[in-house]
């Protein structure tokens, strides 16, 4: 498949935004449980604002993918059957909840509304946080299912696509939370950094399992089933177009196989070991710059990871375009 930059930025920015928001809510839950020192409301408010900006940037990137962005509103229509439609509905809900969560913290609407059990004081921010967390997780599933639901792209048609999007997005968000805490000199760096490392390692396991699966993948269609001629030697002589077509542009990455393989090594290094080492090193030397660097290194790696995700998928229509394939 052709890796479109709009979709690469859409999925990575949304992942980081949702992850950062989940990190903010996780921080609040730990503080309520008194595992962490309580933070000023501004901490969560600013964190949610950054998350919202990332979501808005992701939404903006998605418009570059559309041929007719002015009609984008129509995309909410077919939510019964289309994961893309479901994403279009859930994304604004997540954005609204992230915004509301940030606003509630900013204006310190933290008077308890009711009490659960002996100790849990439920206020507006907690309610919004729980709702936003559910919506964020649903959005991760919707975004990933857009790819995982296309059964013809066998490289994507696996639950591992969903787990990759979920864990890699959450990892980059927690990494950003660590960077944000380090930037403002907040003691939560260790907390967020540890969670970021855990999520990164889970993401690594998921991505390696995905790569291993795809390396052994047997494609269902062959050129024999594509044209229905039962013969071992079928060679294409003409593709029906002189200067290429949509089919030769949209379904091929147009780069050499060696570049794809080199980039795989690069992202496997940038997304997983390097940020983990940077976070570990930042604990040892107490640096506030290293978590920030860890986030940017990992995000750059995730952009390459998403590029590879597209480049590695082989569409069965490519059987009709043998000289490009």
């Amino acid at each position, binding site marked *: *498949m052709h890796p479109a930059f709009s979709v690469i930025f859409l999925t990575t920015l949304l992942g980081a935004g949702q992850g950062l928001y989940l990190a903010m809510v996780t921080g609040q839950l730990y503080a309520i449980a008194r595992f962490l020192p309580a933070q000023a409301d501004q901490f969560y408010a600013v964190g949610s604002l950054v998350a919202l900006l990332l979501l808005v940037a992701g939404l903006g990137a998605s418009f570059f*993918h*559309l*041929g*007719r*962005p002015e*009609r*984008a509103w*129509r*995309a*909410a*229509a*077919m939510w019964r*059957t*289309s*994961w*893309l*439609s479901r994403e*279009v509905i859930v994304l604004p809900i997540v954005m609204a909840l992230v915004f509301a969560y940030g606003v509630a913290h900013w204006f310190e609407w933290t008077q308890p509304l009711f009490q659960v059990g002996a100790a849990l004081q439920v206020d507006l921010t907690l309610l919004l946080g729980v709702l936003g967390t559910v919506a964020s997780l649903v959005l991760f599933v919707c975004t990933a299912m*857009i790819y995982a*639901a*296309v*059964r*013809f*792209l066998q490289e994507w048609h696996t639950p591992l696509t969903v787990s990759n999007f979920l864990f890699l997005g959450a990892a980059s968000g927690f990494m950003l939370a660590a960077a944000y805490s380090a930037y403002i000199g907040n003691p939560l760096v260790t907390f967020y950094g540890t969670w970021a490392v855990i999520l990164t390692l889970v993401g690594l396991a998921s991505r390696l399992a995905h790569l291993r699966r795809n390396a052994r993948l047997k494609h*269902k*269609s062959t*050129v024999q*089933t*594509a*044209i*229905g*001629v039962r*013969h071992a*030697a*079928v*060679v*294409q*002589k*003409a*593709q*029906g*177009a*002189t*200067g*290429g*077509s*949509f*089919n030769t542009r*949209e*379904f091929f990455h147009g780069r050499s196989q060696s570049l794809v393989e080199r980039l795989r090594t690069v992202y496997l290094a940038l997304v997983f070991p390097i940020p983990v080492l940077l976070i570990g090193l930042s604990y040892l030397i107490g640096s506030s710059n290293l978590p920030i660097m860890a986030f940017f290194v990992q995000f750059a790696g995730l952009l390459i990871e998403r590029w590879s995700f597209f480049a590695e998928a082989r*569409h*069965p*229509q*490519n059987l*009709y*375009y043998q000289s490009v394939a």
Partner: protein
Amino acid sequence: MTQLALVIDLNVCVGCHACVTSCKEWNTSGWAGPLVDQNPYEGSPTGTFFNRVQTFEVGTFPNTETVHFPKSCLHCEEPPCVPVCPTGASYKRPDNGVVLVDYDKCIGCKYCSWACPYGARELDEQQKVMKKCTLCIDRITDAKLSERDRKPSCVLACPANARLFGDVHDPDSEVSIAIRERGGYQLMPEWGTKPANHYLPRQKTRMHIDPEELTRVDNPLRREDLTDYTGEETLDDVAW
């Protein structure tokens, strides 16, 4: 229920591209606006076509065969491109089974093209909407046209009569009989998309002759008993 479709006879397709040009001519001049052509007179012309003829070589020299393979939307009975469309622009007409795109609703997200294993959908780079074969829906549903003309323009243009058009759900239609009696098959059946369009395989007229058939059973000169007798008792000696 009616399911209109094409049946393409690979046995007689000569790869002349008349279906391609007539399709382009009809559909670029219609109510939906032109099908884009970019760099038409330069080194690498490209554009939107509903129908393309590809050529494959089967076998290794000198035992090769050239297969000209016209390729367009197959109007699947289970079209995977329809449910993925977020706007509902992609739909299958309930009355005749033709899969169509509403160009006024399409947002050009290309998701349907990912969900088509056949590569039948092409984005129009000028109008920025997804386009595909309509089976010339504006011709075949036009009651003002004579019965003879109420067919897709590719079918009318084919000089070899390699393209048949009709209702594949009607067991007595020309297309159903052709599929049934001449081994019509579907492309990539492994995906369960149930393409309505079928292809008729290449056939060679061969006569199978057993060596025995070369000897007439009633040949009066045929020597029936091939045993060499050396004076022993035979059936003729004991039976009378």
